[in-house]
């Protein structure tokens, strides 16, 4: 282990798509046992930043480091061997495979010691025979997160895992993310489901205008004038 406090860190990321500079200099990090949440308006570059951190997109500038060791270029399959898991927006499942086959793939690769616990925690036992393409949005989200739990990663990067879900499913998945953090996983998430995300987070990073601002705790975020004005909006009630 290195002396770095970050299990994973993407630093100074710049990313340009054609003539559109989505990120100018943005950073995100993952700390063991913490849920770090990226908040920001649509188009602020949250997904791009997470995809760079996950080694899915190559940045034009910036570096991705695991335990303080820079990987150039970072690639997801290499990060995966270092304990990183990435849940993309729109879930992770292969449509033609059953839920059970997904868990089998995880168990074959990483060992199956956490599968039962994950299946129980996410309540997906009854879905095991079903093909992924037959699942509802909420079921796909639960199965995806259960797969992450079964894999027992060191770092989980989850891009908008709560989007489009019923409040009861958001609550359940939020608890699962907290459970993962309690087990020592470094969780990074994003989204717009602000009340639930603030309630499960330890740290907030604000993504705006191509860069990121470390806001601090959820309490600090709710008291941050500029963040309140430009992201939460005047109608937001502090919890």
């Amino acid at each position, binding site marked *: 282990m290195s002396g770095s406090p970050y299990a994973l860190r993407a630093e100074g990321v710049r990313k340009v798509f054609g003539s559109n500079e989505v990120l100018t200099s943005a950073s995100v990090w993952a700390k063991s046992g913490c849920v770090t949440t990226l908040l920001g308006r649509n188009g602020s570059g949250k997904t791009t930043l997470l995809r760079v951190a996950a080694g899915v997109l190559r940045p034009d500038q910036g570096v991705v480091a695991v335990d303080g060791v820079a990987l150039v270029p970072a690639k997801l*399959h290499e990060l995966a061997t270092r304990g990183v*898991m*990435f849940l993309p927006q729109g879930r*992770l*499942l292969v449509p033609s495979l059953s839920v059970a086959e997904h868990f089998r*793939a*995880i168990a074959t690769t990483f060992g199956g010691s956490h599968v039962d616990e994950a299946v129980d925690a996410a309540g997906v036992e009854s879905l095991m025979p079903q093909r992924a393409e037959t699942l509802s949005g909420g079921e796909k989200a639960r199965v995806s997160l259960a797969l992450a739990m079964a894999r027992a990663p060191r770092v989980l990067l989850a891009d908008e895992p709560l989007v489009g879900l019923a409040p009861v499913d958001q609550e359940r998945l939020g608890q699962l993310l907290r459970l993962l953090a309690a087990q020592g996983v470094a969780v990074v998430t994003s989204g717009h489901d602000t009340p639930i995300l603030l309630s499960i987070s330890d740290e907030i990073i604000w993504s705006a205008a191509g860069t990121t601002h470390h806001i601090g705790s959820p309490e600090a975020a709710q008291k941050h004038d500029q963040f309140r004005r430009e992201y939460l909006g005047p109608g937001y009630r502090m919890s």
Partner: protein
Amino acid sequence: MLWACFRVAAVFGGYEVLVLFADLEGTARPSALPMGSVRLGAALAFLVAGVTLAEMARRSELLFLANLGWSKGRLAATALAICLGLEVCVQLILVW
């Protein structure tokens, strides 16, 4: 992850095209085909493999594999090994 490899091994479909040409042209086996047909079959094989990979990427299947530590190169190499294995089997059947 043989499931994924077999999907990429849809490149084998290109080989099946060769077999089809062989039937159409009355030859006993693909190795007896004229080079033009072989090239066409190979081109179709690459096309099928490319379309399969693109479809897997579109449906985030490659992301699932990458999360398991599988690179595209490893996937392609395993698929190629499967193709070669299947080719040997088909050749043996045709010879018999």
